């Protein structure tokens, strides 16, 4: 909650009095009805502690209720650094990193239309940067030695592990 302020109840009441359709103030239909008068004018002279803020009524209902940090750009993405070590002596090793795949009868089926990286792996180390869409839960890195009878080697990354680095070693 560092950068976002829910529109305070008092401000809502003031807005209802004079704001009308001005978008600089909240105009959601729910805010005026939900604003409890008890929260509007607590007296500093009274001895009981002030009533807690009625948070449940402050939920923003429309976009105009929100306040955003001026630096937040509303672009949802995260980045992933992929570090690869190709230690094989195979003449050609190919890598596909893809975000749609499934396992059918023990076999990994990759939707190659969803590959974010397609490359012949150089020998030794290589590093790649990928952006990860907000709803990408898993990635598969499928490594093929390009030769007759090849079988892929699969590596996996999961967004739930919240790791921005992924190291893959191919031996």
């Amino acid at each position: 909650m560092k950068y976002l302020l829910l529109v305070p109840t008092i401000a809502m009441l003031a807005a209802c009095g004079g704001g009308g359709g001005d978008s600089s103030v909240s105009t959601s239909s729910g805010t005026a009805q939900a604003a409890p008068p008890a929260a509007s004018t607590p007296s500093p002279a009274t001895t009981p502690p002030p009533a807690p803020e009625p948070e449940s009524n402050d939920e923003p209902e429309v976009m105009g209720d929100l306040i955003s940090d001026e630096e937040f750009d509303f672009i949802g993405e995260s980045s992933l650094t992929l570090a690869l070590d190709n230690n094989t002596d195979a003449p050609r090793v190919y890598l596909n990193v893809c975000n749609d795949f499934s396992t059918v009868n023990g076999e990994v089926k990759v939707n190659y239309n969803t590959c974010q990286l397609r490359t012949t792996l150089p020998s030794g180390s290589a590093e790649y940067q990928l952006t990860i869409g907000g709803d990408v839960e898993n990635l598969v890195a499928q490594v093929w030695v390009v030769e007759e009878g090849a079988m892929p080697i699969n590596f996996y990354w999961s967004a739930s592990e919240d790791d921005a680095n992924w190291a893959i070693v191919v031996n």
Partner: protein
Amino acid sequence: MKTPFKPTAAMLLAFSSLHVSADAFDTCPSQAFLMQDTTAQLYGVNLVTGNVDLLSSNLGTNNRINGFGFSNHDRYLYGWGYESKTIVRIGDDFQIEPLNLTNKPGADFFVGDVALSENAYYLYKKGSKYGLYRVSLDENDDSYLDMQQVIDGASLSMLIYDLAFHPSDGFAYSVDKYGDLYRIDVANGSKTKVSNVGQRGTFGAVYFDVNGTFYISRNQDGNVFRIDVAGANPKAELFAYGPSSGNNDGARCAMAPIIDESIPATTDFGDAPDTYLTSLSSNGARHGVVDGIHLGNGVDAEYDAHVFPNSDELTNADEDGVNFITAFEAGLESFMQVSVEGDGYLSMWVDWDQNGTFEASEQLIADKSLTTGTHFIFEDTPLGVTSGVTWARVRYTSTSGVGASGGVIDGEVEDYQVAVVNPGNSLVNNTPYFLAFEDNWPETGDYDFNDVVIRLDSSMIVSQESTVKKLSLSGELTAMGASYNNGFAIQLEGITNEDIDSDSIRFSINGKTVNTALLEDGTDNAVLKISDDLWKHVTAGGCWFYKTEEGCTSQYEFKFSISLQLNRDISLNSFPQAPYKPFIFATENTPHGDAFANNPGRGLEIHLKNKSPTSLANMSYFGLAEDASDVSTSTTYQTENGLPWAIAINASTHTNWLHPQEYVDILKAYPKFSDFVTTNGEKNQSWFTKENADSTKVYSY
């Protein structure tokens, strides 16, 4: 009628009356009829694919029927019965009914058809003793069933095997064994040689469709050709690969289109742009859908191709036969996995030079024989191919020797967009961004974020030295809930026009090359101006807006594709990152809200929050109305509460963001968006998925 019936002439009239109960055909059928074999067998022919279905193996005769035609007047088939030595009529029970003719010349006929302008049957036989005959089929005509010679066969001499009447010009047409196309005026028996169509053979079955396209089927190989008889110097174009036959005769209702949309579709098409010959009118690649032979897990049928920018996948995801495990790397083996059902031949073409066509020299795989199962295939990618994304076509069928276009009786065609790179280069594909704009800047709008919604896909080819060799962008307008007219462009921060190899730019809209300049003049950074008015490309389809209101559809699409190469080495780290700087701008000479006394035009730009405007933006517009931008600190396109006029949603490749319906606030459509914003994108990063939407408040396709 299993017992052959051999009526005497005296019995024929009585016989005829017995068969009056045979009904006419209900409709003018789209399929062609084909009579084959020495004991007549009747088939239905799908001219689109060449598929043939047996309609009747027992028509009540032990001999041939030839000279076959369909009467559009009474909807019966007529032919010459070799057993009964007279005209026979066939109704929807597929049984012959011999008719009693007068003045028969004493010969059998194998050339004939029924006219469109009159209910009369014309028969032709070469030779001076015979010729062209007219037989009235109109019971009210005085000459009903009287065989009248129009002209003798010496005066009208042709080596033809069938003829057919044009649906509108009144002439009959045929192609002789030498390939000469004749137009015949049956009123006087004169003929005109129209052209030589470039094919020879025995064209035993010929047909017209309602558009006047002439189809001729060659007995020797079954190939069906189509001819535009109204064109200049008409030529035969291979149209479908049908079955061969030693004895063919065809008939068809010339008033029918060749695809009947009142019955389930029977044909599979590709979906590449039509320059690759995809649709039926372009004689596109197409396959009859039959059991037991296809690519991948299945095949679906369409009435016509869903040509790019539409997709075959919209109806059913059946483009699943080929996995391109490697990109095509020039000079190296490409590696692919192909799954097929049934025995057949695999062929593949790749548009290596990216000129929008599949040339014969671009055939990568030719008639590779496969059986049911999954196969790993290695093929050499030629040297000198153009890098980037291009189209590939894959066909699988039991017929060998098929080209990249035309119909075939079975199997499947699948069109793919594939990547071609130079050896050692990497292909980096960004996951798509859905760019959603409110176009009311500098006033706040209704926050339905559907005034302009564009899906933007992008990819780069990157060298082993990590320099960007090529940038490809493709996009699609998915919604436009805008009253205003907006253009769309993308600014490439840190890249100038001089950095871009202008000769390398390829820009297309809806698969068609755009010849207007893509790079805007007079900008500090390169600006790719994709459209100066998005409403030029689509219509609202009877609604107020484009794809924001339920129950409204528009047949129009707006998809663009761009690729460009750079004049200098720019490292991946210094290259701008997706989604780059996309923005909308006001179309010249159109109004854009109360904040402007005059039409603001190109100077009005609306960008993602905190993105810098281009050097063509009118800086005096900042700070008007609710805009709280401070351009000097790159705090731009936001209100004093930090709210934007545009958002970019980065989704997985297979996600299609469902934008809010018209006037629906984005928080109502996507309640989890609130926490995404309040946590600066830390929480609810998948707020935009279908599962997180209120399905009653988002637009459904």
